[in-house]
């Protein structure tokens, strides 16, 4: 599969500088600053209303920021209208023009850019081939499945050779199986054309799987921007730790740079934290189970209530009486623990983040 020379290696640097946007009494973006390297795929991840779609729409020019700058390839485009930005976009809702075939949809942007008929045909065919839909070129949107429509939308966005590609939750309307496949397809195409890409999603699996870097947003701010591995294993804030992946919330007491959780002292990510009650955020894979020896009642002894098979690993849910804890183990180990058996928990001494919120006092 080939891509035209002009369509490869077209990545440019994108900078969002202190973008702010308010709607009536709601702050959608409270000073977002983000730099994307040429050819990079950055995923903005966050719950509904965190401002990720607003950031994308400001970059697309579909909305105007209250303050801040949008800089693409060192050119300030903050006040450039959407149709003159040369930014391609794939939407969450199916956005193919219903009165046009797949081929006409892909060629639409090219005709607006005054590309001659022969070149238009060549690039349209090339883009449809890129997304594997050459044989559906003459079909209308209603004759294509959801996944195919989004692939045509991707081809249409890439056909104009955009400086930046924006993906606004393009997979959320699809079923799980198609979503997983199309996600990989998008990544393959993005790597092939090399366009700087911003991918907005609320699905952490999607973000962690597809992106070079993931930005986790909360309440209009970027909480952390880092590689998927770092986001998961070294969350910068309690919000990131809790939003990305599974986290056990275990009440404890901070003392001299460590947190005491049910008699086990765990190191802190922020050793300078003040002494006092806190909730330790412990990943399930840092919890292991011991089932031998005497199982006298104790703060870390509980009953297995469920074992969920996930493939190579399994998740074991243990009821400690006052709190439910999840442990993620290799499936070979997890099979030893069936529902109803008594187990003792062991916590790996990895640095943990702590949260100090209203739940800290209640989760004793």
């Amino acid at each position, binding site marked *: 599969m080939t891509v035209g020379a002009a369509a490869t290696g077209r990545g440019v640097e994108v900078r969002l500088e202190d973008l702010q946007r308010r709607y009536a009494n709601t702050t959608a973006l409270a000073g977002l600053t983000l730099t994307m390297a040429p050819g990079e795929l950055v995923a903005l991840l966050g719950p509904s209303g965190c401002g990720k779609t607003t950031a994308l729409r400001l970059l*697309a*020019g*579909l909305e105007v920021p209250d303050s801040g700058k949008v800089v693409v390839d060192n050119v300030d485009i903050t006040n450039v209208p*959407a*149709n*003159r930005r*040369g930014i*391609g*976009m794939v*939407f969450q*809702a*199916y*956005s193919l*023009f219903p*009165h046009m075939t797949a081929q006409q949809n892909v060629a*639409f*942007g090219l005709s*607006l850019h005054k590309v001659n008929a022969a070149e238009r045909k060549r690039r349209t065919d090339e883009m449809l081939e890129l997304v*594997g839909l050459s044989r*559906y070129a003459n079909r*209308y949107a*209603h*004759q*294509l*499945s*959801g996944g*195919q429509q989004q692939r045509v939308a991707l081809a*249409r*966005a890439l056909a*104009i050779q955009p400086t930046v590609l924006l993906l606004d939750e393009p997979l959320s309307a*699809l*079923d*799980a*199986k*198609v979503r997983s*496949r*199309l996600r990989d*397809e998008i990544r*393959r195409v993005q790597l092939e054309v090399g366009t700087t890409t911003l991918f907005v999603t609320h699905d*952490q*699996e999607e973000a*962690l*799987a597809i992106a070079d870097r993931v930005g986790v947003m909360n309440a209009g701010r970027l909480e952390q921007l880092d590689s998927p591995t770092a986001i*998961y294993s070294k969350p910068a804030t309690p919000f990131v730790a*809790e*939003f*990305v*992946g*599974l986290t*056990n*919330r275990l009440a404890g007491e901070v003392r001299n740079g460590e947190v005491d959780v049910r008699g086990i002292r765990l190191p802190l990510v922020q050793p300078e934290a003040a002494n006092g009650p806190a909730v330790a*955020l412990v990943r*399930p894979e840092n919890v292991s189970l011991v089932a031998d020896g005497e199982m006298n009642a104790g703060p870390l002894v509980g009953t297995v209530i469920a074992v969920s098979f*996930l493939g*190579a*690993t399994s*998740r074991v849910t243990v009821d400690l009486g006052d709190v*439910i804890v*999840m442990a*993620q183990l290799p499936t070979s180990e997890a099979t030893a623990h069936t529902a109803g058996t008594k187990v003792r928990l062991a916590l790996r001494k990895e640095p943990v983040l702590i949260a100090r919120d209203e739940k800290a006092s209640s989760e004793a």
Partner: protein
Amino acid sequence: MSRSRRLKLQVFRTAVFLVMGAFFLVPIGAMFEFSTRGNSVTAPRNLDAWTNILKTPDLIDAITASLELAAITSIAMLVLLLPTMVWVRLRLPRLNRIVEFLSLLPLTIPAIALVVGLFPISRWMRINISDSILMLSVFYVILVMPYSYRALDAGLAAIDIKTLSEAARSLGAGWATVMLRIIVPNMSSAILNACLLSVAVVLGEYTFANLLTYENLQVAIAYVGLVSAGTSIAVAVAALLFAFVLLMILSFVGRPPVPIAKAEDADFQVSQTVGLSGGLIGRSGR
């Protein structure tokens, strides 16, 4: 569905079709019958009333004027209403109710009251702009607005104009291109519907034209009716048939292409097994 139930349904449908058909066609048939009567009870049937249409210059002028008014009104209505409705939906959705209320308002005001209110404007336009009958189209736009608004509103509701217009804009389209190449083709049926309603209202309009002393089709029919009832009825039947032809055109234009079964999502060229990504799935149990 059982066979007897299907049969009952078919009988019911046929009965409704026949009753409705009779309801619409019997009066037209009666009008046609009347227009072909001779001058006395014993006189043979003839088409004099129909041929008289062509021999009455005032009538031809009135028909021409009404057709021109219908065309101008339809175009003016579209130019005024469609971009406004699209803009309100995209940018000012809070004003949607107000625009709907204003558009439907002429329906609640009797034509005679509207004419009285608009008379000073009509007089000013006659003195300062033109005395042509085509100036009536300014008032007819107000008159057809409630019907056209409903038709266009249904068309706009059927498409996701926000996403489609944003997609087009991101591809480089200006607002004029968005309107002409994206929105209009996707609501061609609604636009045709709105135009047909406008044409029907304009062709049937009498009060405005008569009270503002213009001679359109209906006013001419009324005048001709004083001299030759047969001719006036023939013109009325012709006008009804014209509307019928327009309806037929509407039912054949803008039909979606013959559907083809949707392709399966499974036909990805890149095949892979679905990953079971264990620990990364889900959020903490808050």
